[in-house]
């Protein structure tokens, strides 16, 4: 099995804070790989590093064997045509309706006729179950519908790799179920390679083939969903079981409570 994405010893800092401190991740082709971890651990940053929107301080990221961060702008854009990304907010263009949003990458990168573009857009919309919503504006869509439209747009150019940034957060159970089914179905039907960044444990483990859990800038566990579920490491258990206190403390670092209170008393 070949790896579509390889992340080797990546270090990345932002505002003096280490987000990644030597992270190694491989994304096998044709599989759904989940990257999980608590909020603020840099999961979205990792997707932006893979997409070449951010540059690591150290380490290497390859997609299809190409080092993303040594490519020229032209070659990077060419590589991005093979990637799709579903942003947390959807990232739909608010001045275009659903149909035009999905047609956008086709119009930008192909010379297809309007009839052909219409057919392709309708096929993508049918896949996500929103063919009837083609004339709606993004402001008229629910959160779940927006993500499905964004998903249809992300697969418009038939990419090899699709990256989902928190696709399930803030969704009602029905929308979540629809998105979980779509991610798995599209991956298998279109032969995609999927990367899901999420902290929705149950739903993500149900569709992933392989899972990485990151915290404090490092990979704290990886394996198949079953293996992850059986892992007894304290930090991993705290995240998977949703425990309020543990290796990740409940309290944000601060001086002693007594001392803090006494300092406020005027003598």
């Amino acid at each position, binding site marked *: 099995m070949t790896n579509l994405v390889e992340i080797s010893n990546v270090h990345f800092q932002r505002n003096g804070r280490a987000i990644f401190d030597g992270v190694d991740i491989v994304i096998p082709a044709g599989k759904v790989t989940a990257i999980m971890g608590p909020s603020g651990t840099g999961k979205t940053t990792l997707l932006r590093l893979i997409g070449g929107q951010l540059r690591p301080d150290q380490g290497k990221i390859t997609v299809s064997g190409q080092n993303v961060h040594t490519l020229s702008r032209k070659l990077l854009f060419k590589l991005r045509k093979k990637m799709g990304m579903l942003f947390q907010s959807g990232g739909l263009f*608010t001045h275009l309706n659903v149909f035009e949003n999905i047609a956008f990458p086709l119009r930008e990168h192909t010379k297809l006729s309007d009839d052909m573009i219409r057919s392709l857009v309708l096929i993508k919309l049918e896949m996500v179950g929103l063919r009837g919503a083609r004339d709606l504006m993004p402001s008229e869509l629910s959160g779940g519908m927006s993500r499905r439209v964004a998903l249809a747009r992300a697969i418009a150019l038939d990419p090899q790799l699709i990256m989902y940034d928190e696709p399930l957060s803030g969704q009602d159970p029905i929308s979540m179920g629809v998105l979980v089914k779509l991610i798995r179905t599209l991956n298998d039907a279109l032969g995609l390679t999927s990367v899901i960044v999420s902290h929705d444990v149950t739903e993500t483990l149900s569709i992933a083939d392989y899972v990485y859990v990151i915290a404090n800038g490092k990979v704290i566990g990886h394996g198949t969903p079953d293996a992850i579920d059986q892992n007894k490491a304290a930090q991993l258990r705290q995240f998977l079981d949703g425990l309020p206190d543990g290796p990740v403390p409940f309290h944000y670092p601060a001086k002693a409570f007594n001392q803090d209170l006494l300092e406020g008393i005027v003598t």
Partner: protein
Amino acid sequence: MMTHITALGRWGIDTLEQLGKAGLLLFRVIFRVPNVKKGLPLTLQQVYAEGVLSLLIIVVSGLFIGMVVALQGYHTLAKFGAAQQLGPLVALSVTRELGPVVTALLFAGRAGSAVTAEIGLMKATEQLSSMEMMAVDPLQRVISPRLWGGFFSMPLLTMIFNTVAIYGAYLVGVKWLGLDAGAFWSNMQTSVDFHADVINGILKSIVFGLVVIWIAVFQGYEATPTSAGIAGATTRSVVYSSLAILGLDFVLTAMMIGGW
């Protein structure tokens, strides 16, 4: 003391960094191979959004400013028995100064702020990021058409402002206060030099237009992607543009009076 010096140093470095980024953005927009087939329709859309939609405020402001200048000018000139010089007074004031400056200030408030807010919101809602990930350059697709749209709109708006302002002065001076129409127009024609007054005014408007729209797109592109960040960027866009217009007006006027 050291804290103040450190703060001043940090402010200086931040300001220079921002200027550098703004310069790079302008450079990357201007010195890129234009895609006429895709870029022209987008630029025309922006000429509509920034220019045509600003017409109402420009026309109404132009009319009232022309009328007020005529009213004030008439009463002052009449004291010296020179009321017949109202046409030249209005035309020179409008074509040299009021037209380019007021149009640019209105343009910064109406179109510049809208451009900043729109780009800032596109950034906050990840539209620019998603465009980048679709291998579409936001500089080419979003920034460039807005910059060129503003660049082409400003001189056109200034010409319209000038025309309407002079017509407003005609309404007050001739139709209301009873000046002779022939004297009004012929004195104006004699006194106004096409190159020194009209063309120089238009040149000013081209410079103001570029600066205003440059500030607007840069502030939007660099806005912090939060509601407070976009509000701050929009405010800065209008304030910086207004100050730049007034400062540049002095510099350009000095250059033009000095014969360049």
